[in-house]
């Protein structure tokens, strides 16, 4: 089937709503207290030359709360005095980075100690298996089962950030894009394209759910090609009528696309991108001749 009717928006881009898993708590959100959160030991690992230990803080309360910076962490080694974990020289700002936690959201604090030193050639280690967190809203949390070895230097906070959960991101996408956000996409495009020429390619939208996805509120899409710091973008309306106004349950619909490749783009590897408003994005590396 082919369709002549094309719905064309002006060739200026439409700002799509940014999908963000970061819930913005209202001003005046109170500081997190021990009763609001569950604190667990995450991975003990290796990253950027540091021996690392994750601490995960989840808001298990019914209201949002905030941390005005990473919480005070105290290592509790078995045979030594407690040691307070400081900010790292690389990321001192984390001490005052305010993070707000909606109910169900999680923050990760990544502690690091130097992974190697002359003393590490010997078998002795200085491992803390327990630590304690002081929450700014009051209360302490003890975390067992950590592994923080301070043999080669003191522990510092390398990361302090909200976990960008895929589940939260999908929930936000569902709010913004509705059922269209459940579609998946794939692309079939040639490996090469001529600068100044027309690139023809196909985008297939698939509906993995057991219910049809309506395209009655016909979404737009943005396509672009990028090379060496320059890009072209166009936002257009999908030809929903051609698809019969829906993507059938467990079915797919393919759309033929075309894109004028600017002659001004650099030769070499280019990035083709196609993104459905509120829905999936697809792309491919294209050799630009």
């Amino acid at each position: 089937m082919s369709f002549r009717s094309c719905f064309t928006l002006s060739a200026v881009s439409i700002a799509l709503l940014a999908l963000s898993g970061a819930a913005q708590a209202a001003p005046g959100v109170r500081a997190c207290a021990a009763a609001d959160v569950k604190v667990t030991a995450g991975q003990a690992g290796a990253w950027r030359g540091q021996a690392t230990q994750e601490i995960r803080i989840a808001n298990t309360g019914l209201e949002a709360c905030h941390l005005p910076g990473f919480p005070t962490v105290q290592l509790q080694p078995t045979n030594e005095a407690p040691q307070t974990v400081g900010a790292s020289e690389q990321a001192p700002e984390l001490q005052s980075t305010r993070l707000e936690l909606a109910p169900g959201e999680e923050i990760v604090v990544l502690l690091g100690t130097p992974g190697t030193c002359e003393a590490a050639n010997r078998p002795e280690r200085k491992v803390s298996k327990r630590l304690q967190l002081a929450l700014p809203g009051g209360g302490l949390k003890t975390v067992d089962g950590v592994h923080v070895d301070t043999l080669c230097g003191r522990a510092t906070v390398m990361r302090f950030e909200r976990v960008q959960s895929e589940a939260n991101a999908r929930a936000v996408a569902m709010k913004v894009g509705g059922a269209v956000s459940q579609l998946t996409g794939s692309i079939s495009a040639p490996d090469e394209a001529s600068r100044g020429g027309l690139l023809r390619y196909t985008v297939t939208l698939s509906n993995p759910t057991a219910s049809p996805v309506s395209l009655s509120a016909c979404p737009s899409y943005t396509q672009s090609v990028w090379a060496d710091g320059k890009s072209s973008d166009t936002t257009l309306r999908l030809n929903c009528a051609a698809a019969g106004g829906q993507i059938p349950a467990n079915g797919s619909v393919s759309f033929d696309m075309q894109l004028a490749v600017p002659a001004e783009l650099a030769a070499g590897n280019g990035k083709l991108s196609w993104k459905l408003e509120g829905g999936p994005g697809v792309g491919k590396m294209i050799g630009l001749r």
Partner: protein
Amino acid sequence: MQSMSRKAMARLLPSMFLCSSAVFLTQPAQAYPGGGGAFNGKGFDTCAAPSTSQMQAWWTNTPWSWVGVYIGGAVRGCSQPNLTASWMNTTYSQGWRHTLIWVGPQAPCSTYATRISYDSATAYQQGKDEAVKAYNALIALGFTNNAAGTPVVYDMEGYGSNATCKAAVKQFMQGWVDQLAVAPAQVSGVYGSACNSNLSDLATMARPPKFIWAANWDGNTSTSTLSCVSGTSWSSHQRLKQYQGDHNETYGGVTINIDSNCANGPLAPSGGLNSASVCN
């Protein structure tokens, strides 16, 4: 980013339009193809896999074409709640290529929670065991064709110059390389500090890794220039380089803390050489 503004490009392209035809299909869900190929271009790595919407924001009109993904290992630095077969498929569909990173036991002369044995036979077997685990992780992530030909990198963090320690690491890496060579073979790589992980030692192994990914934060994107590694080692599209570490970048309103990388070597699932790349 130095992108031409959207309005400016719109003036260049006044006649762009869409005419689409729609074809109804029923097709199986996409899977991540096993395999790899030499690629030239920039990529980034970050401790935990971002959400797929963040990855989409970082694909469109950015310099990044590939992403380093920590797929597992006893000392992987960050939990990976987002990393699933679906995440691999979705980001592949978005256009991304990938480097798969395994972070198992580290040098015996380090303070990491899990370490390689000083005993050479044990170290060799540990290397083989980690290769099997990495292969299993690839299969769990949905790699087709038994992940044959898929490049996979062992992350060996810096550990210094103790001779006994270096010997143990070398034995371990030989086990890694040998086991990955067993059918369905993967392409063995090693990530590490160009100097402090003693990558040059690995060039003298009986069966060296097929490629290296060197952390050398000199800001120079060229993979030809690596501290402590001879220019003649891994010189045939066998190098990735982490040229800048630990910084934030923002694209499409999404900020991620990353290391910046260049590839002149194998990526999953396919390659794409570019003689004009700044990564060469």
